[in-house]
């Protein structure tokens, strides 16, 4: 940039002074120039404004949530009404359990679907439809996943359960993982696959020995981001996993989760519960951000 500007400056000086009639230089006080400066300043201000909420959220989490960050938080059960102390241990356990169930259900299906979309039938009608529906599903309101699972699982099993919560989160993970895994597999250079086919590999061998190993870092990135996203979800858990004040003993029981705990405690009139809601938010954001940062380290392009 600097070199370029200096060159232009050079050229200007080597030329004869511009005549008054054809002055190509822009006057700094001209209306258009002033408007330009004004717009730059305004846009920078607006953009800076966009960063304020994040800083404010993080500040509140550290100050309010950090105050309760101790061992008790992770090992105790949530307190009742006027009780003091307590922790969010069962909510952390419940969040991890539901996310694990969701991952176990959705990741295998999503990767299989992505292999079909990227490798077996990239142009087929089923692929086109599945791809389009996945894109539409990523914009699907998460509460509708809860409504659906309520009708499909909770009514069937006869009660709220950690399993139902996991299924609801799986519905949300499925399209995102499919789309990112498909994109990752499409980034694998065609000549690598062609070489393998030339050696007499079947399509399946190409997928297992060439495509998947090469695309793995990007696929893992997509999976981690999807996990991070659903770990923070609460709407689909509201009436699938419900909430529980006790430790989770079976996946067929209702379970607590960090997000529902925050929702429930935020409307309580007790200082203790609100402090716990902030602490739970801090833990939840730390989990989500850890996953996000992890995905950045794994997902460095290696192809």
């Amino acid at each position, binding site marked *: 940039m600097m070199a370029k500007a200096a060159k232009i400056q050079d050229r200007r000086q080597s030329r004869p002074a511009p005549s008054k009639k054809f002055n190509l230089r*822009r006057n700094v006080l001209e209306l258009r*120039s002033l408007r*330009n400066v004004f717009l*730059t300043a305004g*846009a*920078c201000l*607006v*953009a800076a*404004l*966009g*960063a304020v909420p994040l800083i404010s*959220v993080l500040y*509140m989490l550290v100050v*309010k949530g950090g105050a309760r960050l101790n061992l008790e938080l992770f090992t105790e059960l949530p307190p009742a009404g006027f009780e003091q102390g307590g922790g969010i241990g069962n909510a952390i356990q419940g969040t991890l359990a539901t996310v694990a169930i969701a991952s176990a259900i959705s990741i*295998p*299906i999503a990767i*299989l*679907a992505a292999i*079909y979309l990227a490798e077996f039938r990239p142009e087929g009608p*089923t692929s086109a439809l*599945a791809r389009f*529906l*996945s894109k*539409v*599903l990523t*914009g699907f*309101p998460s*509460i*509708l996943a*809860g*409504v*659906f699972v309520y*009708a*499909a699982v909770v009514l069937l099993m006869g009660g709220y359960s950690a399993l139902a919560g996991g299924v609801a989160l799986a*519905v949300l993970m*499925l*399209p995102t993982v*499919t789309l990112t895994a498909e994109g990752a597999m499409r980034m694998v250079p065609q000549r690598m696959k062609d070489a393998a086919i030339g050696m*007499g590999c*079947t*399509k*399946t*061998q190409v997928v297992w*020995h060439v495509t998947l190993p090469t695309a793995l870092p990007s696929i893992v990135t997509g999976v981690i981001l999807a996990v991070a*996203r659903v*770990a923070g*979800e*609460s*709407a689909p858990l*509201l009436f699938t996993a*419900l909430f529980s004040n006790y430790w989770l003993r079976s996946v067929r029981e209702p379970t607590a989760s960090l*997000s529902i705990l*925050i*929702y429930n405690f*935020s409307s309580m009139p007790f200082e203790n519960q609100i402090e716990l*809601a902030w602490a739970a*938010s801090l833990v939840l*954001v730390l989990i*989500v951000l850890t996953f*996000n940062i992890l995905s950045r380290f794994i997902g460095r392009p290696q192809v």
Partner: protein
Amino acid sequence: MAIQFALQDGKSLSQRPSIAAYVVDRAFFLAAGLGAFTIVALVAYILWEIGGQALPAVIKNGPQFLVNTHWNVQNQSFGILPQIWGTLYSSLLALLIGGFVGVTIAIILTQDFLPHQIAVVFRTLIEMLAAIPSVVFGLWGIFVVIPFIRPAADWLHDVAGFIPFFGTSLSGPGMAPAVIVLAIMILPTVAAISQDAISLVPYKVKEAAYGMGTTRWEAILKVIVPTASGGISSSLVLGFGRALGETMALAMLIGNANQISLSLFSPANTLASLLASNFPEAGQIERQALMYAALVLLAITLVVNVIGTLILAWTSRKIVKA
């Protein structure tokens, strides 16, 4: 995989797959196809389940459901006009704020306004915003946004109360805090998709504009943004779609009052937060009505998202061709 790389009497390096490999290949192909089919089947099943559960309420309430304004469990008379209004009103206002800030951020980040390192940090900050869970924004809205805007809201109501937008005083939760938080939540979506759209604009277009002697902002506003307008509008449509379906932050901030009001400071309700707050304790009849409301929400977001996806597909194809 039985591939041998040694040449034998000038024969080809490659060999046919064995029968076993062939069988495995077919089986794996079927499994992968089943995976893809699961997605299609899932969407169909979702529509069928929600539609099936809503059917009794659809038959009983009919299209009246969309224009009735009461949600009365005792009389079993249900209507969702206030929720539809609240959903559209809050999403539109949020889009106005979030869209403006989001597109501005996209311009700042793509047009070399900032030194590279600062741009990277700033982009990461905006991406982190997308990672903050909805409930955390809700909690933040209750304890930070509402106290923060209350003085301004009171002042506006006192001074300009005759304007319908400021017609009521802010008692706590209400439309204004909900819209602010919603705008923050859709901002990363708009910024990310707009950035992609703007960086797709060919360099020569921008250079041609500069060659004509435009200022930076003339080039941006008259050449670059119009060229990227397809992608930018799809970012706005998809952001709008996100706002429509956003649940928890709104359920915590909007006040859950079934009324239609232009005022920014009065409590309202949205379809998603109606579901969130009424579903867990609902009885059979109310649950069917809620399923009907879910169906309406599904229809609205489906239409908005399909439009956004189509605009995105259409414009990115057009730009790549040109």
